[in-house]
């Protein structure tokens, strides 16, 4: 009895030693060129599918057919995903096909996954496959935008895709056309924010035409340094050098702000608007909520180019940013006054955020020049 047990012990020690030796001597083949054995491939994929299914969040996704979400996801798909997964406008390149495993063409795979599973894959990435995580774990709203786009992509032809990923103006031509008229870094901005900084007016992207240069610079800088969480803008800004950031911040400041609110006041519930106005102009003294106009009103804006201008901004963007400022878990970087905003936002209730976002959205932008053509470029002064 005892002799047999001792033999088993020797045997297992010997086997363990052999495994270590094989690993240590470098005998294991890790070449991508040789691919996986069939069984390895099957095991890895099955484990991945089961894991995603198990970990996918149970919470309800936002309405994924929202065109603004699809548009926001498309802009980033082109810069972040298309190089490996291809797109309706271009097939996967020969280089990525030599990856093991090679990235799938998503058009015929999307239907295999529930939205929550796609969300989990996009947010967290997949080990051992080359699929990266979303650049920040703090922006589920952006991940859902990507899911919204992914769900819409299988139906798209090349032209549809180009319009979404490069903007309506460039959708007809070739992506390369952009680089002939503007600098490459600017072309990347224009794909989503347009030449006029309006981001197509559907609320997918914030209005940039209303912002002073220091605000745009501070935002770009915070994205580039990783202090302001956004998978989309961090990827766009992180590769840029200081001179690029300065140049890009100046780019949209040359645009004349378009007159007109982003939401018509008569389409909004009057009580809600009145509530928003009260918070904007007087704050909520009993709960230490400052009056937003103290920094974002005309008087302060006329004297302080570092305060973001929010009158005329899209309500969805305002709502989302207020929620990010209110979230104590997430660092919401920005300019030198950002801590004031964190302090002001963290006591606001969701219905108050809604009211104040709609109030500012229904206002004329500060500093617009009536009578000038929308998006006209200011003459150099």
């Amino acid at each position: 009895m005892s002799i047999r047990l001792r033999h088993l012990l020797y045997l297992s020690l010997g086997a363990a030693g052999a495994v270590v030796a094989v690993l240590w001597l470098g005998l294991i083949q890790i070449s991508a060129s040789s691919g996986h054995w069939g069984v390895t491939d099957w095991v890895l994929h099955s484990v991945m599918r089961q894991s995603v299914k198990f970990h996918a969040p149970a919470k309800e996704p936002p309405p994924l057919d929202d065109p603004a979400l699809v548009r926001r996801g498309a802009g980033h798909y082109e810069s972040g995903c298309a190089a490996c997964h291809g797109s309706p406008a271009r097939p996967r390149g020969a280089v990525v096909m030599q990856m093991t495993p090679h990235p799938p063409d998503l058009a015929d795979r999307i239907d295999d996954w529930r939205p929550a599973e796609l969300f989990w894959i996009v947010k967290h990435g997949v080990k051992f496959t080359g699929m990266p995580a979303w650049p920040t774990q703090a922006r589920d709203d952006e991940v859902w935008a990507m899911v919204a786009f992914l769900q819409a992509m299988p139906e798209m032809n090349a032209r549809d895709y180009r319009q979404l990923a490069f903007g309506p103006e460039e959708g007809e031509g070739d992506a390369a056309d952009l680089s002939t008229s503007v600098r490459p870094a600017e072309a990347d901005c224009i794909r989503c924010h347009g030449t006029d900084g309006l981001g197509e007016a559907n609320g997918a992207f914030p209005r940039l035409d209303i912002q002073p240069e220091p605000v745009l610079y501070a935002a770009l800088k915070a994205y580039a340094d990783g202090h302001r969480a956004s998978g989309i803008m961090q990827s766009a800004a992180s590769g840029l050098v200081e001179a690029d950031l300065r140049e890009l911040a100046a780019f949209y400041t040359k645009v004349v702000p378009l007159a007109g609110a982003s939401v018509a006041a008569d389409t909004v519930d009057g009580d809600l608007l009145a509530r928003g106005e009260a918070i904007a102009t007087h704050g909520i003294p009993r709960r230490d909520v400052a009056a937003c106009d103290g920094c974002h009103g005309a008087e302060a804006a006329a004297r302080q180019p570092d305060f973001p201008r929010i009158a005329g901004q899209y309500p969805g963007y305002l709502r989302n940013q207020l929620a990010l400022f209110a979230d104590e878990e997430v660092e919401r970087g920005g300019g030198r006054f950002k801590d004031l905003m964190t302090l002001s936002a963290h006591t606001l209730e969701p219905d108050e955020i809604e009211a104040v976002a709609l109030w500012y959205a229904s206002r004329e932008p500060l500093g617009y020049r009536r009578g000038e053509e929308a998006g006209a470029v200011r003459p150099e002064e």
Partner: protein
Amino acid sequence: MTNRPAKVRRRPSGPARPSLVALPILLMIVAGCDGPQSALSGAGREATDVSRLFWVMLVGGAAVWIVVMGTAIFAVLQPPRGARVGNAFIIGGGVVFPVVVLAALLAYGLSMLPDWAQSGTRLKVHVTGEQWWWRVAYELPDGTLVRDANEIHLPAGEPVEFVLTADEVIHSFWIPAIGGKMDMIPGRTNRLVLTAEKPGTYRGVCAEYCGTSHALMAFSAIVHERDAFDAWLAGQAKPAVVADSVGARRGRDQFIAAGCGGCHMMRGVVELGDVGPDLTHVGSRRTLGSGILPNDRETLEAWVRNPDHLKPDVAMPGYAMLPDADIAAIATFLEGAK
């Protein structure tokens, strides 16, 4: 014991020691009985009443104590003298005397309750306890409110009605030299009538623990002659004065440009938020930070830069992100806003 060298020698204690320790303490206590925050200095009718009540109660209480204790000691020391004499002592010294004295003290105390019937015509001062400062508004006869903060001004010789409430937690309003105190309770209005008598500057405090900086929540109470009070109130009703200098005007612009108006009213300059103290005439106040620091340039700049350092957990954010020149300009402007 005797063989061991006394390494740890106990301090010798004797009858002389306690009095040596008690003397400075007694001196300190006596020294505290005067000055701008003394309830015994009698600068107001109510404080005088309270002070008199204190002495009357002290004398009455002392009489009861002496008689009861005297009777008890007498009973112990004397040989028994029979039930009748004993009962007379117990009933006379232990029951009748205290009941009579205490009833008299109660009647005297009750007679001092304020007479609310004459309410109406007098000056009303609304005071709200905030964490950790005082929101003040003077109600004029026509109902308009003149707003101020962290200072109370009173006309001498007239009853003034304080309308007291609080914002988030319970505070207590107390000007010991003039009268009080009265709790300030969120969602409830308490009234307190005080009559200041001697012109002068006194100190008021929050007398109910209200959070981290409770001990840093005080205010100046300034009693004027009637004419001087009227002139002061008329001055407060006016919009802020921007001193006629480039520095002050630059400071006003920096004040607006730093977003101060989001929380601070400054009538005539910026009238938006109303979260923090009204600053319309901040330059004329005696103190900063709600009665804790002198109102001077150095304090103004330090406060703007990092108020939490001076008053822990204060709601105001620090403005250390501003360049020194901007903070200096804001201080110049605030200093001039008399």
